[in-house]
């Protein structure tokens, strides 16, 4: 089976800015792929080049075995692109909007309405798009991208500005879309989102892909410490330090702020057994590294535009 996307050495320059500087990317059919990176990393331009909206200066791209540039009418019905929430016609209701977009693909109103129902907007079908909440507009935007049943779906920051409930609901929807066999490419600022949804992620910065892999594999790779904490007052700091040393645990940091006794270590095993022996497990929390740590390690901590 050919890969859904294969891109090789894409470059794009705007004036003095090398927005995309040699991106190579392969997304397998059926994969849920995330593109992560700070603002200005070149995510959006990369996505636009993949979608066929912009012509790369250099590089070779194939989407479903076809070149996206120049505009290819055979390819267009097979891909779906979700836009940021306001990309609708003015003064139209949700139903009118999705029926219009569906009609461009020769998809009838029945299927358009079913799609609306699927994203939970059946009750808001006659609301003007300008009056919809952020979450509703995002769901409508996704519904519009899916109305024609595309094989390959591009989602550009679909959960930006949503409340936690709306975000979780949208995650369920996106997982379902992927489970149906569609290939999904997602850009996001939320690393928890990428960790939960994506099979693989590509971390970008300065127009380059720094690393690609499964989120868990990337996290393991950075070999960070694990933070173990329990409720204060069960074990003194000095007593704990001696017991951990006796058990052979390597401790990076140990303190008690009056609320929690917290230990950072690369070997959580001995630490946990000491705490268990001392019957000091009340309020236990174990936190490993996250994708966010991977991200910060790869892209640094300075502010971005």
């Amino acid at each position, binding site marked *: 089976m050919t890969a859904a996307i294969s891109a090789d050495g894409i470059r794009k320059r705007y004036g003095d800015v090398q927005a995309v500087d040699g991106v190579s990317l392969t997304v397998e059919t059926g994969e849920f792929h995330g593109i992560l990176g700070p603002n200005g990393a070149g995510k959006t331009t990369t996505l636009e080049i993949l979608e066929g909206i912009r012509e790369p200066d250099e590089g070779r791209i194939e989407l479903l075995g076809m070149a996206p540039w120049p505009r290819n009418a055979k390819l267009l*019905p097979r891909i779906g692109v979700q836009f940021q929430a306001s*990309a609708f*016609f003015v003064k139209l209701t949700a139903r009118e909007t999705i029926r219009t977009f569906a*009609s461009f693909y020769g998809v009838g109103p029945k299927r358009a309405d079913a799609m609306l129902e699927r994203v939970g907007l059946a009750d808001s079908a006659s609301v003007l798009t300008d009056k919809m909440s952020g979450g509703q507009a995002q769901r409508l935007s996704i519904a519009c991208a899916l109305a024609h*049943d*595309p*094989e390959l779906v591009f989602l550009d920051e679909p959960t930006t500005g949503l409340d936690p409930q709306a975000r979780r609901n949208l995650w369920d929807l996106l997982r379902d879309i992927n489970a149906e066999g569609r290939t999904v490419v997602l850009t996001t600022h939320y690393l928890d989102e990428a960790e939960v949804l994506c099979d693989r992620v590509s971390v970008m910065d300065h127009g380059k892909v720094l690393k690609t892999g499964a989120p868990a594999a990337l996290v393991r790779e950075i070999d960070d410490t694990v933070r173990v904490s329990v409720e204060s007052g069960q074990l003194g700091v000095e007593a704990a330090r001696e017991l951990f040393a006796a058990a052979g645990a390597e401790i990076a940091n140990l303190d008690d702020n009056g609320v929690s006794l917290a230990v950072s270590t690369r070997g959580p095993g001995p630490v946990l057994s000491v705490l268990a022996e001392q019957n000091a497990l009340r309020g236990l929390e174990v936190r490993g590294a996250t994708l966010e740590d991977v991200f910060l390690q790869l892209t640094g901590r300075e502010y971005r535009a």
Partner: protein
Amino acid sequence: MSAPSTNTPSIEKERVSTFVSITRVMLTGFMRDRTALFFTLAMPLIFLLLFGVLTKNAGTSHVKIAEVGQVAVLDSMPGDSRTELEKAVTITKYDDESVALQKVKKGDLDGLVEQGPNGQVVLRFSMSDQVKAGAVQTIVNSVVQQANQAASGQQPKFTLAPSQVEDNSLKAIQYLTPGLLGYAVATGAVFGTSLTLVNWRKRRVLRRLRLAPVSIGSVVAARVAVSVVVAFVQTAIFLVVATMPFFGLKLTGNWWLVLPLVVCATIAFMSIGFLTGAIAKTEEAASGISQIILLPMSFLGGAFIPIDNAPHWLQTVSRALPMRYLVTSAQSVLSKGGGVMDVLPAMGGLLAFAALFTAISWRFFSWDDA
């Protein structure tokens, strides 16, 4: 996996469905946009009503005179002569000469007639309005001459038999209707095109269209169709209002030629909207630039005031403006008996203008901001 659709409908069918959808979208949007409705339909109509009422009696130099005391030549006129006279003159009786004289001096009356000694008829007038001063003298003089002739008891040797050939006097409503219709059509087409383009670019609807398998031709065709429909609605409203007895526009035989003319003018004005929409980044800028082009073009093209008496160089400038071709040709076919040959050259000119402006605009056009 729900199977991705493999049965792609024929390209022809898709084009029609795209055309229909986009047309519906734009018409719905227009109908729900109160600002657009006001500026394209209500405001030009208000202009027509306003100008129509204000200039209702302009063009006919109706003379008002005062008859102070008894004036024999006026009082002894036979009934039908008197009726004929009152078509041109309003005669009001005054008893006090000084009151009437004051009104003549202020210009409320154009002249004052009183009985002098020895059969003299005294006429006092003001030269403040030279045309009316001339008219009042001519009219009163002819009344006196008629009375003399009647007094002589002889049949007149020479008589004048006037008859009107055509209404060339150009009543106000005859230039107001095509002029303001031109302004209305231009407003609808320029703003409709310009704002749609900017709004769609800003909201990324253009990008969406580009990523959908639609032909750009059917999108453009839909926009043209909507603008033509709007222009026809404007034309219908204007003709209905102007031909009401109150305004009294009389349509001549080939008035329907205004319809193909309006289609060509709409396309020409749309090309201006295409240019302003391609240049402007925001709706506000698009409105501003469009207005800067639209208002001078309307004045110079004779939409508000006839430009026949304008300086020669201004008339030359106006020949480069689509407004002039619409207004003068519409004037000709609506009420001056113009025929096909009066509109064909104008239609050609309008389409040539549209082609030129579309070509220029295309250079500035972009699908996306930045």
